[in-house]
């Protein structure tokens, strides 16, 4: 290995500069700017002038009923969507990995939703959830369940969002898990077979632990993704966050404050709070994973 020297460091920076410039312009600068803006009572984002420096915005955000609802919805959404979608994805990946003709076809099929636009899928889900013509209610009717106004009944708007959220994240997770499973040495399974290991034990004692780095990776990015849910809301409900705001999420709140209410400082404060929540939880997850992830 080479010792890092000024010359080589400069050279490396030169090669990295295109990406660095873009990241600095569109990520790092706006991030600091948002934090800065979040402390002003009033702020003109075009002239960069503000007044009323302080914590008022934060006070307003955390006492705003809509933000509390958004926080509650987002939390419920995350707590349900992340584990459920991961479990389904893991199970699907295991099933997809079994010896079967035409595997490549199914792998492709399962990956298709990932390359499809979420808004378009949201439109498809609007049809699925449609209370009169939707297939979901038709299926539920077979089990004697009455018509549910999925998208119009405030009681069901969050569940509908959760169902859509679970589905929309599956493709990516399945593909990552499948790659992980296929990377596990086949001899572990042969050894397990010779030793008469049951399928369930093979899954819990061999596949899961060997996949644990992948599971935690997916866990962390799904958690972050779920907390940032926004497109799913737009895809399903268009220009409003569900009936009576019942499908409001934090990012939707931020967007709404910025464009709808034209209050950039409030939007900035809310996004800083979101940032802190994600930071704290990711930090906890990393700490836990260090202890739990095998080998």
């Amino acid at each position, binding site marked *: 290995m080479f010792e890092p020297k000024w010359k080589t460091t400069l050279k490396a920076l030169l090669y990295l500069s295109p990406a660095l410039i873009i990241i600095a312009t569109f990520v790092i600068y706006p991030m600091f700017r948002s934090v800065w803006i979040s402390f002003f009572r009033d702020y003109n984002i075009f002239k960069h002038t503000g007044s009323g420096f302080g914590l008022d915005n934060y006070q307003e955000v955390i006492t705003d009923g809509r933000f509390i609802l958004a926080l509650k919805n987002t939390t419920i959404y995350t707590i349900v969507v992340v584990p459920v979608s991961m479990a389904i994805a893991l199970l699907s990946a295991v099933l997809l990995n079994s010896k079967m003709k035409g595997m490549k076809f199914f792998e492709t099929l399962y990956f298709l939703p990932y390359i499809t636009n979420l808004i378009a899928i949201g439109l498809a889900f609007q049809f699925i959830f449609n209370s009169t013509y939707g297939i979901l209610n038709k299926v539920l009717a077979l089990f004697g369940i009455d018509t549910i106004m999925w998208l119009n009944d405030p009681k069901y708007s969050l569940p509908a969002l959760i169902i859509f959220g679970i589905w929309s994240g599956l493709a990516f997770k399945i593909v990552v898990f499948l790659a992980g499973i296929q990377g596990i040495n086949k001899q*572990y399974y042969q050894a397990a077979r*010779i030793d008469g290991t049951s399928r369930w034990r093979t899954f819990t004692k*061999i596949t899961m632990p060997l996949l644990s780095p992948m599971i935690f990776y997916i866990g962390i990015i799904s958690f972050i993704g779920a907390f940032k849910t926004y497109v799913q809301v737009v895809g399903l409900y268009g220009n409003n966050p569900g009936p009576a705001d019942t499908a409001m999420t934090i990012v939707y709140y931020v967007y709404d404050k910025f464009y709808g209410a034209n209050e950039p400082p409030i939007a900035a404060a809310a996004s800083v709070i979101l940032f802190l929540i994600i930071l704290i939880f990711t930090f906890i997850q990393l700490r836990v994973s260090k202890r739990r992830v*095998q080998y």
Partner: protein
Amino acid sequence: MKVRLENLTKAFEEVIAVNDATIEFAEGKLTGLLGPSGCGKSTTLYLIAGLFRATSGKIFFDNEDVTKMQPEKRGIGLVFQNYALYPHMTAEQNIMFPLINQKVPKKEAKIKAKKMAELVHIDELLKRKPGQMSGGQQQRVAIARALVKEPRILLLDEPLSNLDARLRLEMREEIKRIQRETGVTTIFVTHDQEEAMSISDQIVIMKDGFLQQVATPREMYDNPVNEFVAKFLGNPPINMVHSKIINGMIKVAGFDIEAKGIEDRDVLVGIRPEAFKLDANSPVQLDVQAFEYFGRETLLFVNLDDDLSRVLIESDFPCEKGDTVGLSLRMGGILLFDSEGQRIYV
């Protein structure tokens, strides 16, 4: 437990890996399944294990037909070439794993694992994970894991190929010792003839999917059935010289070799390097073309025909390239083969 293969064939899409093999593996013995890469030895092992399905033919454990039996029902222990230890479990957990599968209570499993660890001399390392152990130690854990459920048959796939030279010598003695102590019928796959010769009670040698010979190491070395077996066993390898039988005699570079009672024909004469004897008064005097010094012995290269032949002599005889040495032959290390490579018995 005796293992018998009857007309066993395994065909993959492109090749026939095992071709109509009928072999009996002796009970309670250590059998080396020997052959060059791609000869079908590993396939044979996996067929016995049940991880591969036979295309045709039968496999018997004693008198029980296990051809269609699931691997987990066969009662075998298998040690993989790369050990296949579960990397996230400690040595102890690895060894206990097959027992827990059999619903053995944890306490009892722990005691058995400890006993097994003592047998393979790793009882100090039970709390370590495979990543914290050397290749030889991992190998021992793998053997303990295979033996802990008291298998009817122990199968080892190239058990020594991932170890360095010194560890290999140590582990092959260990495998022999463990086999002796447990008395379990053991079959191990190897491509190393020296390894097979040194520890096997019985050697099964294969080539291109076909069984060549089953014999004890000594019998196989002294009486190979064909040219392939003769060439495969022995290091330095046997010399092969083309010649003719005329009136019951063969001439090879001045040597007269008796072949009484065999009609006149072309023969391939195999001469083991150690069959030569230094003999200053011999009528056969040959030039040393090259030599390799091994310490105790020296290998000389001389021309018996157009090719160089190897002559193994004691190192106390001083010798340089270009010297002329007088050589005679001991009868023991001379083997005759026909043009198809089949042995001609004198």
